[in-house]
């Protein structure tokens, strides 16, 4: 409860800071007004879904196929006594929201591998991601009650070079023969190298990314794929964390608004074009 109150105070500060910026004309770039309005609307929606009790409590997320396989993938690795490999891909850095979403899922997966005593291997290309992942996994093991099962060496920086990283992870996959592979984060061209190699050792593979072109490969080569936004919803789905679910709900409300916007603006644009009326333009950002 205290943390929630604290978060609410933070939010108020946040909005006050925004208001202060806007009120001084010298400081405010008017060209950014539409983005500011949209950001404020989005913030209000997130606050509403997070703190409005009944909205928050009743909400459930629809079934997401890839996520139901998470438990199965961890169980399989445990049964086969082989490790589980988790990588956030080469494309992201810690500042990227996708990486944060991937960390969230990692903490859920790590809690289970701790429980089942299944080895979790996490190679990454970014030393900051490595540092954060070590914290995340360590605390998951601690909370699960098995701090001694945590192996910091398994959460390692391999190299920053894209195909150096790909070669290294490929090597790991062929030698460790993980039973399950999680490819969740921002991927670039290395995606298919990893997915095909994973397939050749018979691993069950769960992928998810915000990199749209790599999605095509994951869809073809992996067992389950989380498409774009599903990755963000996944952490809420797995953990059942109300605050994450609330932001998924907020995203849905925004999607409805966007849909209505597109329909209304589309109709107005059509009427404007047909009858030469000046209805158009207001939707240009």
């Amino acid at each position, binding site marked *: 409860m205290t943390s929630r109150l604290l978060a609410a105070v933070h939010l108020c500060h*946040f909005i006050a800071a925004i208001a202060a910026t806007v009120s001084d004309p010298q400081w405010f770039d008017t060209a950014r007004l539409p983005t500011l309005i949209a950001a404020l609307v989005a*913030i209000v929606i*997130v606050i509403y879904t997070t703190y409005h009790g009944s909205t928050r409590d009743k909400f459930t997320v629809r079934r997401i196929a890839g996520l139901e396989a998470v438990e199965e993938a961890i169980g399989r690795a445990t049964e086969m006594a082989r490790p589980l490999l988790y990588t956030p891909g080469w494309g992201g850095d810690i500042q990227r929201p996708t990486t944060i979403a991937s960390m969230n899922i990692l903490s859920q997966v790590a809690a289970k591998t701790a429980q089942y005593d299944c080895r979790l291997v996490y190679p990454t290309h970014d030393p*900051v991601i490595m540092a954060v992942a070590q914290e995340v996994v360590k605390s998951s093991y601690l909370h699960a009650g098995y701090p001694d099962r945590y192996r910091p*060496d398994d959460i390692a920086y391999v190299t920053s070079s894209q195909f*150096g990283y790909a070669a290294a992870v490929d090597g790991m996959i062929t030698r460790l023969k993980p039973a399950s592979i999680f490819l969740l984060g921002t991927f670039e061209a290395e995606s298919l190298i990893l997915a095909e190699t994973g397939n050749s050792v018979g691993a069950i593979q769960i992928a998810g990314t915000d990199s749209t072109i790599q999605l095509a490969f994951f869809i073809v080569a992996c067992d389950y794929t989380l498409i*774009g936004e599903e990755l963000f919803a996944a952490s809420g789905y797995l953990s059942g964390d109300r605050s994450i679910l609330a932001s998924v709900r907020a*995203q849905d409300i925004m999607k409805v608004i966007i849909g209505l916007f597109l329909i209304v603006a589309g109709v107005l644009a059509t009427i404007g074009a047909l009858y030469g009326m000046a209805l158009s333009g207001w939707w240009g950002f």
Partner: protein
Amino acid sequence: MDRKIALVACFAFGVVMFAQYFSAHPVAHQVNQAVLEYWQIIFAFALVLGVVGFCQTNVTQVRKGHDRPYRMAALAGFVAMPLLATFWGIKAGSPFLWMFENVQAPMQSTVFALLAFFVASASFRGFRARSVPATILLASALLILLSRTWIPGSMSNWLPDAADWIRNNPSMAARRAILIGIGLGSLTTSLRVIVGIERTWLGGGK
């Protein structure tokens, strides 16, 4: 306590960076520039951390006799580059760049080129007309490939047009919706991070 300091720092930097986006004031720009330099500097220090971990793991493995020749090759490659850079510099024509161009670059290009083979095996294995969506996936991939293949005769005229239409309309629409969705997901995740609801990165704990 230490968590609180981190949360406050996260919040403060988040708000500042959010606010500066909407400002054209020189001070805002300076703040922006400064914080961005912090990223680069912190990253550089973190890199040392990663590299030390790399060395530790490899040295331990060499001592234990696990994969000794390979571990030593990795260490040798790693030590060679800074040494070459220290003695002969890193400009065009230096041994450092020679290593990059003749050892690192060709190997990386080749790892990348492996993709051609994996694309082939994935095409053979993964493209099955199991269901309606899978068939649509298959058909549009075939159309694009054919349209970009040199075929003599009349086929070569309408195929690229059809492929371009698909690419610029239905295909683009789907990508656009994916982008919008990712934008929204990123937005709410970032917002949760700034206000401190999302704190997995701190090592969990409420």
